């Protein structure tokens, strides 16, 4: 029996489109462009907590740090990044860290391998980055590993208006949730019920 639970690959995450809003802290940002990125990152040799971000200070080992800029967001450069999946092809047992904790378990530094997270069965990362400090780190053995990341990059601009639809709230630990204020939620409920004064009712099948 093959273990392939990833039938919902790429469908499990929300597809945010241009015009939708992020909210970070108390500031709204409007999406103006969405770029889907599948990125191969090569890391050479034994590494401990190798930073997968622009500020990687390592030299002579693996990917040049400038190529890693798209692995993190940067509000000063109008960029928010969602790292969705990662898969590997080279036999090894790398482990990831997000912030200061292991990615896959809070208390155990679990590893992945080509069976658990092969390129055709990638494992979910599901972390949002809007700052260079929100980044992945990887520890690996003495191999030349290629990490295949599935990333969605959002180009955003600060938005001074108020949302009329649910928006995507990004949290400081890299999580993201859909949020609606009371007025939006009430309008949605009224709309679905087709009440007077609400938005145009949604046709029912």
């Amino acid at each position, binding site marked *: 029996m093959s273990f392939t639970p990833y039938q919902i690959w790429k469908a499990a995450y929300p597809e945010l489109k241009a015009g939708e809003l992020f909210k970070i802290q108390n500031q709204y940002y409007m999406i103006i462009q969405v770029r889907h990125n599948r990125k191969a990152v090569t890391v050479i040799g034994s590494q401990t907590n190798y930073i997968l971000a622009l500020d990687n200070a390592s030299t002579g080992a693996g990917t040049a740090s400038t190529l890693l800029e798209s692995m993190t967001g940067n509000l000063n450069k109008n960029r928010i990044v969602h790292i969705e999946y990662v898969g590997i092809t080279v036999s090894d047992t790398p482990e990831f860290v997000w912030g200061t904790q292991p990615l896959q378990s809070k208390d155990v530094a679990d590893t992945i391998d080509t069976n658990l997270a092969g390129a055709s069965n990638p494992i979910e990362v599901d972390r949002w980055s809007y700052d260079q400090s929100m980044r992945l*780190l990887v520890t690996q053995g003495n191999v030349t590993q290629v990490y295949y990341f599935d990333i969605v990059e959002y180009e955003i601009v600060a938005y001074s208006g108020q949302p009329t639809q649910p928006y995507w709230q990004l949290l400081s630990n890299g999580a993201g949730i859909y949020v609606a204020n009371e007025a939006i939620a009430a309008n949605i409920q009224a709309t679905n019920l087709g009440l007077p004064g609400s938005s145009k009712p949604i046709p029912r099948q």
Partner: protein
Amino acid sequence: MAQTSTKPYKPFQPQQTPFLPESIVEELEDNIWKMGNLSKPQDYTDGPTPVRIEEVYDVQERHALATNKTTPVYWDLQTNEPKEIRLQADGADHYVDFNRQITSDSPKVFSNTNIIVKTRGTIRIWAKTVSADTGTLRILVFKR
């Protein structure tokens, strides 16, 4: 003869996506802050007591890095407001990084300068000196 679909038009319905009330966000962020990503004790026993930043400081949190501190030490900063954190070193070369323990092959060296990160939430600052060097490492926290 062309087929005619009998299926009624169904417009895009983004509001069908489950969402949470706005009132939950502040509590959620507060719980993230309380839990932190830094709750696990480390093996190093000479790390100073974690620092919790509860107010907005103009300039705050100065920490001295003792002589010959070749074993990495760290400070945890936890902030629920976006802050600009600057690390400044006097006198000696220091190895400093955010959220990553300093190892001999991955230093970030600076002297008489500063590095800046803008963040909120939790952050661990690792530091060590080169052998026999001494100096003061100052952590300056600004409101963003």
